[in-house]
């Protein structure tokens, strides 16, 4: 598993650490054309999930409102207000809908997302 990761994924620079404000998402273009919505929550956690709202097809999740539902960190789409679990990408409205998530880290100067080298 570890080896597989090491050979097929890479950390890409998403933005400067200072650019990602608390609860205020940004969109990142991934190699291969996918888009990630990147968030930093109040408790300092970083999350990256698919920027495309699966209910509307629009690439807008980064522009949604970050919050929580009974302690679950969430992002609510700005279009029709569907809400997703930031950690797992699961839709809270229909459990079978799930967004892709990617690992994120903050190097101290740069926020990075780990993605497959090529588009899936």
């Amino acid at each position, binding site marked *: 598993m570890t080896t597989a990761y090491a050979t097929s994924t890479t950390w890409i620079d998403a933005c400067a650490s200072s650019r990602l404000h608390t609860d205020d998402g940004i969109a990142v*273009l991934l190699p291969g054309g996918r888009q990630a919505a990147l968030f930093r*929550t*109040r408790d300092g956690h970083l999350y990256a999930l698919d920027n495309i709202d699966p209910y509307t097809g629009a690439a807008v999740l980064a*522009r*949604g*409102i970050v919050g929580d539902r*009974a302690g679950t*960190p969430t992002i609510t789409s700005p279009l029709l207000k569907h809400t997703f679990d930031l950690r797992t990408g699961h839709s809270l*409205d229909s459990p079978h809908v799930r967004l892709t998530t990617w690992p994120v880290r903050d190097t101290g100067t740069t926020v990075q997302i780990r993605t497959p080298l090529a588009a899936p």
Partner: protein
Amino acid sequence: MKELVVIGNGMVGHRFVEALLDRDRAGHWNITVIGEEPRTAYDRVALSSYFDGATAHDLSLGDLTGPRVTVHTGERATAIDRAARTVTTSTGRTLTYDRLVLATGSTPFVPPVPGHDLPGCHVYRTLDDLDAITDRARGARTGTVIGGGLLGLEAANALRLLGLRTHVVELAPHLMPAQIDQGAAALLEHLVTGLGVHVHTGTSSTAVRPGPTGHAAHLDLDNGTRLDTDLVVFSVGIRPRDELARACGLATGERGGITIDDTCTTSDASILAIGEAAHHRGTVYGLIAPGNAMAEVAADRLTGGTATFTGADTSTKLKLLGVDVASFGDAHGRTPRSLDVVVNDAAHHRYAKLVLSDDATTLLGGILVGDAGAYATLRPMVGSPLPGDPLALITPHGAPPPGAHTLPETAQVCSCNAVTKGDLLSAIAHGAHDVPALKACTKAGTSCGSCTPALAQILTQAGITQTKALCEHFPHSRTELLEIVRATGTRTFSALIASHGTGNGCDICKPAVASILASLGNGHILDGEQASLQDTNDRHLANMQRNGTYSVVPRIPGGEITPAKLITIGEIARDFDLYTKITGGQRIDLLGARLEQLPAIWARLVQAGFESGHAYGKSLRTVKSCVGTTWCRYGVQDSTALAIRLEERYRGLRAPHKLKAAVSGCARECAEARSKDFGVIATDKGWNLYVGGNGGFTPRHADLLATDLEESDLIRHIDRFLMFYIRTADRLQRTSAWIEAMDGGLDHLRDVVVHDGLGIAAELEAAMERHTATYTDEWADVLADPDKLARFTTFANAPTTPDPTITFTTTRDQPVPTTPVHLAMPTTRP
């Protein structure tokens, strides 16, 4: 999966777990229940039926089953460690929790009279208590219940059924003092005595004396009486079981009970309390219905819901010793100047009292003894106008009042518009789930407004929770939050949620608080943290369209625009390839702008002298106008000039919802002012002001608030009206719904706005002055601030790359979004 521990497997704890299992379909919670009693939950309300032949099995509420539930019976929780989030039990088990629910119920209070702990002294709470009483009753001849309340009389009946000669001792001057009055109690005592129960009122027990065997044998009363008794049952009240909560430092009520807020959360955000153990807004409820309501709220909260518990009805109807007793509403007539209507028919064993408002039109409460058949009819009428002569309602042989037999369905709730309770219930069944919706579809409460409170009650009775909580993060209504922000000078959402809320907020409370902060004047809406609170459109000062592009609407005050400016708009639309359309508010909508194009578009608009039109904000949109006296041969005033002045005065004003306005230059009303939140119509003497109009989903014509005003008076009235709306409306409540829901309706509004009935007019006007003095164009501000401009990039790591998912086709010579591919799963919700 998270760990949920429930202490107490009584009625409410059981109901809670059932409700949670029902809601937690996704399986977030792993539930462990600790119950002290040797059996799983049973129907305590029906406890006395144990003496009527019911078995423990009959009373059982059933097993809580499921892969994620474990119930430990016969085990007591002995300590809570809040820091470690653990619960220790009598078997030495330690359970870790993410959330803890205390449903420990209550325990009968045993007064510390000498001898209270002798063998033969009992309480009446659990099946084990009843088994003990049954054992003791074998071979006994006499039993005494100390306490003549509801439970005491139930216990007395039990002793009677066990074949004992039974006494009841009550300290108050009469039986059931909490529920009924002297007159009702006199009848009750008469009936109870007739069943062979000896009632001693106005006296207390001073000691239980042992007999030769060391068992209880006598009871001494403070009136000098000594009763021979083999058995004593204490039933003088209950005490919430808050000992665990106290030991771990949770807040408790002065007279006991674990203090909870409307979300059933204790002073520790990880711990909830429900049922008889809980102390809510000064009350500990000793009834099952409020406990069940709390159980539902707690379950809802733990699964992401926003339900609230805001108190409960304590009306009771029971059959005590075969005697009907009911007590509801303000049974004791504690409302100032309330009037009583009493039928005390000792010959027919009937007592009935109705408590009415000081003008005898509204039922406030009542008491029925002997025959409580009218209870079902009367209780729902509490708070609403009586359908007829009150006496007729409680006189069995009197002429039946209109519809009284079939009440509540046919009871006329709104007499102005002849709306019955049945009409309201059917409207509720068809989805009218709040007062404004009920009013809109039935017209009830739209005239004199006096039945508005009754509508809320009927909604509650129909099971619709009228929650005022904004969401799971704030138990407050928008108005309450606004007052908190004003009073405390809080300037950030973070500070507000830390001091008055829980969690991190959501798409409901964040924009609501952002709007409150903006209404109270808190700088630019994209300053600092505020940017992250803004809803979809406010976040980028433009209206997001279905494909993630935006529309741009520059302000065109009063709809008046020079040809040069029109040309500028046309050129910008052409250069950025935008779709253009004339709006209903006399301005121009430019659609299809990408996020990163907005600053460039606005740079050109601002340069040409345009300002933000706030089409994206819950704020003033437009003041539409006709051409007025300047051109129109019918016009009587200069409507265009006034519209421009009003639009410039109120532009940028953030409100609970959008605000639309219009000015018409004569009674022909070409500007359609009566469909606006505020509309002005010229008269030959001045201006008439209309408020609360609405188009949209629920059209409503505006109401006339004041007539023939001079311009300065008109503006003062509008200032007050708008600020009063901003201060007191709910989140996303248009002025029309706000007025509909207002206690006293339009008359009250007029009193506040025109006659300054609340004495706040000067303050409202001052607030509006502050707004007008501090207004700046939001878009010009953004263009001048590199930090804010940085928000207008699509990709942080590729600022020059446009979003590849956005594509257009051409329809009728203009660009429109490519029809979206239909996705497999989408379901939209309102």
